[in-house]
């Protein structure tokens, strides 16, 4: 089985472990393994404030350099924040000579294997941005191909109307991420179609859900989430699909608060894209961690007729 280096990041390691598990289940069926790095640290979650703050680039650069040093040239992440941070760091190292030199000056100092210089025959190779950082969804689209997923489907999600929610950092800033069109993306719609479900287009799919404001200004985040969720429902969605742990937290758990603030609001189930993928590939419902969702997902599951044992052969 093909192995691809995999950086889970802090959220997937603990508070969103159901995203991690469903991704591992699904990729195993699709014929490749997410090979978690032997050691990794926090990537820093947000890219540095300005070019002067070189310190904020060190943690992601160290992760990328470790991948390169272990002889691999591709790194998969799932969390959108990790993806954004790692990819933008890589972009800076590739395109900015000064940043590359300064980062490598730091990295050279903290590599423990460099203490016995005489015996060390490996060259002092600077990290120059060789690793390609890919989102799992990007890997499925470009390396595996969505057609491959459709071939391996065990359950069709036919009849389910799914609203993809992109959020902010998965697509933007476009110059550095280059994943898809930032104003009219299609990567998630195509993914939903590959699972034979029907994608729902709605105007708020790339609008911010408030991100970390749910910690510092929760009311602002509540209003944003209400706009996004009600817009998706107005356009006929049965469920929302996200890829980011923070989007999931805001759109799922915040529905509790939205319900209190807006009496006309009805809840809508939120899924991680990996949960839908592994469900469609035949993984049992009880392995998806649905009990950790605030909103009951069973109305959506009933629509595809696999809340119980009624699986398609």
């Amino acid at each position, binding site marked *: 089985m093909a192995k691809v280096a995999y950086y889970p990041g802090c959220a997937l390691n603990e508070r969103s472990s159901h995203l991690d598990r469903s991704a591992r289940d699904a990729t195993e069926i699709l014929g490749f393994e997410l090979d978690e790095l032997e050691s990794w640290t926090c990537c820093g979650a947000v890219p540095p404030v300005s070019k002067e703050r070189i310190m904020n680039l060190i943690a992601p650069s160290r992760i990328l350099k470790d991948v390169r040093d272990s002889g691999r040239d591709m790194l998969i992440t799932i969390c959108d924040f990790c993806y954004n941070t790692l990819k933008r760091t890589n972009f800076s190292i590739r395109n900015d000579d000064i940043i590359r030199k300064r980062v490598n000056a730091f990295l050279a100092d903290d590599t423990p294997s460099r203490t016995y210089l005489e015996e060390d025959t490996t060259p002092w190779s600077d990290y120059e941005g060789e690793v390609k950082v890919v989102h799992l969804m990007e890997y499925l689209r470009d390396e595996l191909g969505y057609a491959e997923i459709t071939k391996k489907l065990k359950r069709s999600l036919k009849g389910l109307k799914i609203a993809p929610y992109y959020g902010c950092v998965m697509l933007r*800033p476009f110059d550095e991420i280059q994943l898809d069109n930032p104003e009219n993306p299609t990567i998630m719609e195509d993914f939903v179609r590959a699972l034979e479900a029907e994608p729902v287009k709605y105007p708020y799919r790339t609008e911010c859900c408030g991100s*970390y404001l749910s910690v510092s200004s929760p009311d602002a985040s509540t209003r944003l989430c209400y706009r996004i969720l009600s817009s998706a429902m107005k356009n006929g969605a049965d469920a929302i699909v996200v890829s980011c*742990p*923070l989007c999931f937290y805001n759109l799922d758990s915040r529905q509790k608060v939205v319900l209190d603030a807006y009496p006309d609001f009805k809840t809508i189930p939120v899924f991680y894209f990996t949960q839908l993928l592994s469900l469609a590939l035949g993984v049992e419902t009880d392995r998806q961690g649905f009990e950790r969702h605030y909103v009951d997902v069973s109305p959506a599951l009933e629509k595809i007729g696999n809340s119980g044992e009624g699986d398609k052969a």
Partner: protein
Amino acid sequence: MYKKLGLDPPCSPPILLDRTKVRGEFGLQVDELSGQHLYACYQCGNCSSGCPLAQEMDILPSRIIRLAQLGQKEEIIRSNTIWICASCFQCTVRCPKGIDIQAVMDTLRQIALDEGVDHFGPDQIDSKHAAEVPQPGLVGVYRKLST
């Protein structure tokens, strides 16, 4: 007048310009720290119209840029705009002049933080909430809104 919270249009107070501030170093300092060319902005307002959080702000993003061009540091670091910005990059991808407005906001936040107290600290979040939020949210908020 529609009084629902968060739907009042933001209005900036009138400011008095004086030569020392307008000709001062503040605009250049922001330029240098953010790596952007602030004076390219011609006030089309695309950033403000696309900003999902514009309704929560007291000064619109495009006006923040104008204030920075005019060296109005006090106005900017006293506004809530820089703390409400969620760094979603909507303005950055839409700016017709190619200014990375998010980088400018980050820089302004940093200048404000260098001036004084943190906007948000660990004591301002209740422990039950902190135990639920995914870590990128916590790390993000402390990196953006505190020193």
